[in-house]
């Protein structure tokens, strides 16, 4: 009797996995084959497993007992209208632009805030009188709280006067009458968001434009009074915001119904006005 003939059922059991997977070495496989040929138990196991495998591969396809589509349909964007490929491409194309615009706004806002705070906070504290909370001074540039101290005020206060005299009424004027008592004019008074189906340059944006033009005029007058470094940073920030506005407008022109793009454009214009106001209120260089 050879070693192969000595193979037991237990030994076959331990080799069965490899045998069925075809991973056994040739010698071991031959030993299993020889054992199985003379063993009713082991040959039965192999035959049954072979049968199970064959049956499993032939199992019939099942069908659900109910209609599943209704549940699926309710879950997949109920309001979706079939879109053509071209429209999908448009939708995809504005996503990077809108993302870039949003990122640019964040950078610009953070930069100018940091710069204005670090460079101008000290002089401001000397010149700015605390406005009553919730009072007229809280309404943005419309009621600037700059009160140049007599000791430090520059001899020519025309810029301050311009801020007080021209900006205050104009920003309020830009807002609809019903919203004049609200907060900051561009945020509350000239929102474009409610006009989602309008082209980018609708009346709301024209109101923004008026406000921006007025603020830019103020800043133009004040330009010589501001620190050159501050002016450089302001111009860089404005360029970034303007780029964001342009991108938002371009995307909105392609997809005028997009609420997201409308919000992006509003946000960019808000940021621009916020920045211009901050600049208009910056103290003169000392």
């Amino acid at each position, binding site marked *: 009797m050879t070693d192969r003939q000595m193979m037991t059922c237990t030994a076959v059991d331990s080799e069965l996995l490899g045998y069925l*997977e075809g991973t056994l070495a040739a010698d071991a496989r031959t030993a299993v084959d020889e054992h199985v040929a003379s063993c009713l138990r082991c040959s039965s196991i192999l035959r049954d497993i072979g049968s199970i495998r064959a049956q499993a*591969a032939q199992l019939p396809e*099942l*069908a659900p007992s109910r209609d*599943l589509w209704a549940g699926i349909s309710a879950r997949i964007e109920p309001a979706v209208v*079939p879109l053509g490929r071209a429209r999908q491409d448009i939708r995809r194309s504005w996503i990077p632009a809108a993302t870039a615009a949003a990122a640019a706004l964040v950078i610009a806002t953070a930069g100018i805030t940091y710069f204005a705070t670090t460079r101008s906070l000290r002089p401001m504290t000397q010149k700015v009188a605390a406005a009553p909370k919730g009072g007229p001074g809280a309404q943005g540039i419309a009621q600037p709280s700059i009160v140049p101290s007599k000791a430090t005020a520059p001899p020519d206060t025309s810029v301050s006067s311009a801020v007080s005299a021209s900006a205050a009424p104009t920003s309020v004027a830009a807002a609809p009458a019903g919203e004049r008592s609200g907060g900051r004019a561009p945020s509350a008074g000239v929102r474009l968001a409610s006009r989602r189906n309008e082209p980018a340059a609708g009346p709301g944006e024209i109101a923004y434009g008026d406000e921006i033009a007025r603020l830019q005029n103020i800043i133009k007058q004040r330009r010589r009074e501001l620190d050159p470094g501050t002016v450089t940073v302001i111009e860089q920030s404005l360029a970034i915001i303007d780029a964001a506005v342009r991108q938002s407008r371009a995307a909105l022109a392609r997809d005028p119904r997009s609420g997201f793009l409308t919000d992006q454009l509003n946000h960019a214009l808000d940021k621009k006005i916020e920045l211009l106001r901050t600049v208009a209120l910056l103290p003169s260089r000392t």
Partner: protein
Amino acid sequence: MMQPTAPAEDSTDVALAAAGDRRAFERLYNGHVNRVFTLCARMCGSRIRGEELTQDVFVRAWEKLPQFRGDSAFSTWVHRIAVNIVLTDRKNEGRARRRMKEDEDEVGEDIFAPAATPPRDADRMDLAAAIGNLPAGARQIFVLHDVEGYKHEEIAELCGITAGGSKAQLHRARLLLREALTR
């Protein structure tokens, strides 16, 4: 795995559905729902749960369709989603229930012939019912390998186990099935 034959019209409907056309997606659903349901029901051991998972599969497919590159047939792609959904469902369910029993004791709930399902100690049961009575881990690997034709390496990747583990589970499943079918 076995490569299901892809209907020729799939590619058109896939493109339309990826662009948001729900009717095209419904046609895809009609063409593939039985295969997906079969996989889900067999893997989870329950027709009822299988139907719920089938819905999850098609919802997921709808969400991911814009990312479908067409590198494989739609049927292969949706099949893969189905496997992942079932496996994830099992994991989530396990976490939620904290498993009163070990996996070895977990069997399908309503099997495949609920009214006619004999008890485990019955003299004989058919293969479909016996598969439903397998422990979850062994059942899923048996279905993937012996029914669906996945290779051990593919199963290992899908299930997060080794190919050796997949082979061992498969062998165990086969022996349990033999035992159930020959009693």
